[in-house]
């Protein structure tokens, strides 16, 4: 192939893209649909303590089921050598299964979203949700108390899927 033919082909390969779909996710308006087709309760990564195996899902903000958590602090121990971001804190509310009212509190300034705390929980009450928009201007507000973790995060906005289309190019929709 001659020198100029090579240049022309390269240019043409680039120019052709003008006639294809746009390949950009317009993020705050559009969000990528990362939900799995699994029928999880949390929508994200879960772990079955009996079978000792997880269910595929996004590892985002945690959800804590306070009505099931016994305050055993195994999740905090699991996280100790990883990011050391779980603290057991006392909650002003009485629970039958949790006499001391000790619940995990997670510092998202440190969490790496590895999900090993989920694997450690023997009572299936700490899972992860597909919520990831935790950015804030105040570092202290990254500490999520048990009550905050107990609430399911609000998922807002338009969720789009990624479509790899051979003819018209990959796009979101």
């Amino acid at each position: 192939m001659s020198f100029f033919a090579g240049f022309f082909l390269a240019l043409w390969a680039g120019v052709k893209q003008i006639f294809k779909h746009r390949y950009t996710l317009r993020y705050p308006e559009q969000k990528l649909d990362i939900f799995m087709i699994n029928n999880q309760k949390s929508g994200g990564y879960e772990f079955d303590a009996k079978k000792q195996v997880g269910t595929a899902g996004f590892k985002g903000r945690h959800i804590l089921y306070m009505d099931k958590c016994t305050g055993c602090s195994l999740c905090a121990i699991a996280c100790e050598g990883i990011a050391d971001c779980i603290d057991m804190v006392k909650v002003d509310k009485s629970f039958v299964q949790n006499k001391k009212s000790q619940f995990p509190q997670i510092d998202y300034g440190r969490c790496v979203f590895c999900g090993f705390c989920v694997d450690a929980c023997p009572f299936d009450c700490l899972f992860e949700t597909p919520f990831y928009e935790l950015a804030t201007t105040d570092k202290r507000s990254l500490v999520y108390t048990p009550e905050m973790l107990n609430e399911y995060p609000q998922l807002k906005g338009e969720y789009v899927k990624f479509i790899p289309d051979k003819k018209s190019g990959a796009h979101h929709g």
Partner: protein
Amino acid sequence: MEVVDQEGRTLTFSIGPQHPGSGHFRLIVKVDGDFIVDVKPDPGYVHRGAEKMCEERTYIQNIPHLERPVIFDSSGILFPYVLAVEELLGVQAPPRAQYIRIIMAELNRIISHLYWLAIYGIFLGHSTMFMWPMGDRELFIDLAEAIGGTRVTFSYFVPGGVRNDLPPGFKERALKTFSYYEKRLEEYDKIFFSNPMFLKRTQGIGVLKREDAIRLGVTGPNLRASGISSDTRKDEPYSSYETIKWDIPVRKEGDCYARSMVRFQELFDSLNIMRQALDLIPEGSVKIPMRGQIKGKVGESFARTEAARGTMFYHIISDGATHPYRVKISVPSFRSLSAMPFLLKGNHLADMPAIYWGLDYWPVEADK
């Protein structure tokens, strides 16, 4: 550091540690006019003591930490670790987990190679080649995210298998992406790999001959580009790689062009390997249930795998406690460091980016 020598002939200056694209790494370069006469690599800016850290943490707690040095190839650096720990535990991952590991490792290889390709594009002044692989990388990050749950650091391999099964409908989704991407790779070839600009910048530049490659101990694609057919996946098959058929891409030239083409060919090969793995994958469990803390038996274990940049090797010594006694990691990037001064000497300064990034040297991996 002296800047100009006594006769005023040569000039010494440092490139990095904030060099765009080089990562946290410094090259002390001595030039005579436009020619490089001496190079001293200065690694160590991002040394985190990954090996020492392993001694204080349990086998599971080590996993998120060990991924950090190579986040683009996070499964590549974990793979030999879990194999070595499994050897200490005397277990083997179930067959389904072995194939899932292959899929994840190859996805990571593609993610890592695409990142390399994007930066190589911008190093050679081809900004379209920066945009395309970075965008297409999302395809594979999406797939890996569907399995592993996060974008880059999946913490997905654990001793005894993998943490979760493939999500339903993964195969169809993956095959659709692969066939789209294969078409896309043809366009890569037109715009970049057959582009006369790329050929001019890389052909005959930084030639690493067969003997030198062996002497300097480079591994992975860099070694294969110097005419040596060596791939740990073939030489010492692990995790059911022996059931998969593909040809090792080998090139004789040993220059930057050969190193690029080997990596380009590996993108096709990884797609091919994943296709086969998705066909061969058996039903069954993905993990050996292990409760409580993992304790290795007293002894040593070794494991070697082929990560994106070459051979990744672990040596773990256990004294029977819940954490390892000693972990030694041998990373492929550190090996290409020895070839770097050898290749750079005598070349034009303008060829430095092509040679430097052509080796796919990743400072964080080398520093650990």
